């Protein structure tokens, strides 16, 4: 079956290459409605899409004076940034961890998830046109990582002529953020350059422990983009991005260290329209993420050292075919080549993965839209994946429409889960990648270690973590100014990769490895409402209800196998089924409310935004390895942000704002909320 699919797709490509019948070009109609490319890889109106999606506009980003991507994403419904031990800050979407959301810039992925999380603080918002957020599994178009959804950052294109702007923001913690945008566009040609520098002194939430919560750091982002239209039919896009960050650590006892990360990416895309019906895209993308860190004591003795160097190269060809106005096809064929050089790895692994995808988008009637898509990823190191998706939308009337989608998503095992060979010298435990287990076992037996698992479990291939996601919702627009959206979601995730003890050494220390273990689900409801009272006043609000649970844990609670203690040193008692709270770091309720107000005569706009997150648990505190109602929770909180911006002489804009007005902090549990931040901003356009 899969072979047939590949063959037919290959045939499809061969056909398209030879069928270059020329027809007259029709002029494309520019629509004022919001459009996005992430959901279908074609330009689509947001409002007509059968998938749950959202656009964050440049206007909103500028109005709230965001600096890093995390600032703006934290204010969107159902999204929250979660920091991990490695210091990175990732995004949680529909209750799925940050490693299950694909982060793209102009349609191509960022790499460098050293511990699973892609640190979205790496991304500046200074040159963003819009952020496109698509929820629900999207592996049918994007392959690995698009399990919970996709966030695509679309960068700005220059306007006609020579133009640019300089933006500078200074705020609490001696934080400086400076952007320089330069652009030039003529008939056939456009070029732009963007530079950002961000630096901060960091902050310290806990006095007297000798550590800073966030140590000072600085980073630079350089981006250039070049577009050339050879003709109306052919155009070339080249972009490059370079990011570098340096952070110095100071710890007690004279320990000091440094971490350096560097990232570059190159993206080349050649588009050609053969006819009204056929176009193709030839794309080449390469990116490298390198991180190095060390820790030394006061005598310059090297305490620890780590490096991470990941390379991704991806050539891809893509074609669109529009046989008639009612239907369109998009298909692609590509190759992922990935290598990694990392401390504590047994080898320098290499991944090779060709892939192919096809999507059919049809409007059989004016009221119905159907999308069918599928992708096949053939992989050298783990089980190959077939990812289908189906979505539909029905417009009941002008005011009401319903939509639904079902899709498959997966996340490939990362290099660490396959090749790790790490021994913690202070505590003595060892972590082995899945592929290392069989070869390491004889050595472990020789040491006298007791093997605790059936080795046949480690003979096959590690399965990718995978999920089937369901989204059903509707949009109700009683009047043009008022919009209600609702989406019910459920993600059934299985084969989650977790560590388990595979052997115990004679000295009592354990050897861990990775295996497909857990089945979890996340389900809930998302509601968004916006009310444009006038051109000058807009209210919006959002709410997400979330249940994220482990299926085996649910069963264990149901059958009365789970016990708890009121405190770690008191006798245990049995828990009931509804005492199970769910997965760690998930809040049952999240909400936001925003008011945007423009005072036209004063050329002033101002806004107040509030985001709420209900209580959540970070780890088990009563000795049963599950999060239950008797555990200690992190209290829920509300953050209030306020911003005001005024334009003077058309080209100058001054901004002022306070993030986290009421100075909320939770030093014990929340390291990424720094307390109240004042800032001022100036923007000069030319």
């Amino acid at each position, binding site marked *: 079956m899969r072979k047939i699919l590949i063959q037919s797709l290959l045939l499809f490509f061969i056909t398209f290459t030879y069928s270059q019948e020329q027809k007259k070009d029709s002029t494309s109609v520019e629509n004022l409605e919001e459009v996005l490319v992430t959901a279908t890889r074609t330009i689509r109106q947001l409002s007509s899409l059968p998938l749950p999606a959202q656009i964050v506009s440049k206007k909103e980003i500028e109005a709230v004076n965001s600096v890093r991507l995390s600032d703006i994403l934290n204010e969107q419904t159902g999204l929250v940034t979660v920091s991990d*031990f490695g210091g990175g800050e990732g995004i949680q979407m529909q209750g799925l961890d940050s490693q299950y959301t694909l982060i793209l810039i102009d349609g191509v992925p960022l790499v460098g998830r050293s511990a699973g999380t892609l640190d979205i603080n790496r991304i500046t918002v200074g040159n963003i046109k819009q952020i496109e957020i698509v929820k629900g599994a999207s592996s049918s178009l994007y392959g690995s990582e698009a399990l919970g959804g996709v966030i695509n950052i679309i960068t700005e294109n220059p306007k006609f002529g020579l133009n640019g702007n300089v933006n500078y923001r200074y705020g609490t913690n001696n934080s400086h953020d400076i952007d320089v945008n330069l652009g030039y566009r003529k008939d056939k040609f456009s070029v732009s350059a963007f530079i950002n520098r961000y630096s901060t002194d960091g902050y310290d939430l806990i006095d007297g422990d000798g550590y800073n919560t966030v140590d000072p750091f600085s980073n630079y982002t350089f981006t250039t983009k070049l577009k050339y239209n050879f003709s109306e039919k052919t155009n070339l896009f080249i972009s490059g991005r370079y990011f570098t960050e340096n952070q110095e650590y100071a710890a007690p006892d004279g320990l000091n260290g440094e971490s350096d990360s560097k990232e570059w990416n190159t993206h080349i895309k050649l588009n050609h329209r053969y006819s009204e019906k056929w176009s193709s895209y030839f794309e080449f993308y390469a990116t490298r993420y390198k991180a190095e860190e060390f820790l030394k004591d006061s005598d310059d003795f090297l305490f620890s050292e780590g490096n991470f160097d990941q390379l991704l190269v991806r050539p891809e060809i893509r074609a669109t075919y529009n046989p008639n106005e009612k239907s369109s096809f998009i298909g692609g064929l590509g190759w992922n080549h990935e290598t990694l050089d990392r401390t504590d790895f047994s080898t320098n692994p290499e991944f090779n993965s060709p892939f192919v995808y096809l999507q059919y988008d049809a409007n059989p009637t004016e009221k119905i839209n159907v999308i069918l898509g599928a992708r096949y990823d053939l992989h050298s190191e783990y089980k190959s994946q077939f990812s289908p998706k189906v979505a539909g939308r029905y417009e009941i009337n002008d005011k009401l429409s319903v939509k639904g989608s079902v899709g498959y998503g997966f996340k490939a095992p990362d290099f660490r889960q396959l090749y790790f060979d790490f021994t*913690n*010298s*202070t*505590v*003595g435990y060892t972590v082995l990648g899945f592929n290392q287990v069989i070869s390491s076992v004889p050595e472990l037996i020789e040491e*006298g*270690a*007791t093997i*605790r698992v059936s080795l046949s479990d480690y003979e096959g291939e590690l399965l990718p973590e995978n999920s089937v996601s369901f989204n059903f919702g509707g949009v109700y627009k009683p009047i043009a100014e008022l919009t209600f959206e609702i989406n019910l979601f459920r993600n059934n995730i299985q084969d989650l990769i977790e560590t388990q*003890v595979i052997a*115990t050494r*004679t*000295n*009592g*220390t*354990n050897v861990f490895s990775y295996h497909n273990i857990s089945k979890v689900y996340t389900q809930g409801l998302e509601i968004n409402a916006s009310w444009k009272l006038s051109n000058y006043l807009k209210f919006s609000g959002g709410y997400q209800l979330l249940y994220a649970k482990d299926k085996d844990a649910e069963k264990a609670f149901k059958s009365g*196998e*789970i*016990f*708890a*203690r009121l*405190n*770690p*040193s*008191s*006798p*245990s*008692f*049995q828990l009931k089924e509804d005492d199970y709270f769910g997965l760690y770091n998930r809040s049952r309720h999240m909400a936001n409310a925003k008011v945007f107000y423009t005072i036209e005569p004063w050329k002033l706009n101002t806004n107040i935004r509030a985001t709420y997150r209900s209580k959540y648990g970070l*780890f*088990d505190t*009563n*000795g*049963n*390895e599950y999060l239950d109602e008797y555990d200690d929770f992190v209290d829920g909180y509300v953050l209030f942000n306020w911003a005001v911006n005024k334009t003077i002489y058309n080209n100058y804009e001054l901004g002022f704002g306070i993030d986290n007005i009421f100075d909320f902090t939770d030093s014990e549990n929340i390291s990424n909320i720094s307390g109240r931040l004042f800032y001022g901003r100036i923007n000069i356009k030319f």
Partner: protein
Amino acid sequence: MKTIKILSLIALFITVISCSTDDDSTPNIEVESQLIENLNAPQEGGQGNPISGEFTKFNFATGQTTVSETDWDIAFRGTIILVNGGEITGIEDEPNRTGEAAAYIASGTLASVTSVDTSLLNQDFENSPAILTGSGAGWYIYAGPPTHLITPIAGKVLVFKTHDGKYAKLEILSYYKDAPASPDAFADLDKYYTFNYVYQPNGGVTIF
């Protein structure tokens, strides 16, 4: 007059009550839950280095630690718990097994585990102690960074056969000195066991 009447009635009742207690007398000795606090089980080495040191031995019948080579039921060192039955497991400074002790881990509260399932009892063997070691495998969870806490798993009751064929059940409450309500692995001294146990002194009786 009235007072005398009441007093005699009271006397009558007392007599009746004491009679009925006498009638109910049973040959078995009562089982009682006992609390042991801060049983120190030190070790040498650790944190990647070879672990050694004398085990702290405990006798259920006396409810005390003992240095006897033979009259002990279970022995503690660090997070390791051995039983006086079976063979040596092969670690440093291990006491020789002289008795018929055995163990298993049951799920439940100390009160809800009311009988011994003798088919589950295991003795110590080479590389395989009856009470498994390691986080999550036996009686405790090691939290790892950042707290590094060792916490007894809730709902795990250690069921023992003693060296002389009697039975006991035990619930570990804390691994830290004075069983603090919020232990801190950096500030509190560890390898101090606090546990509740119930000893069934009547030979052959497998219910508590």
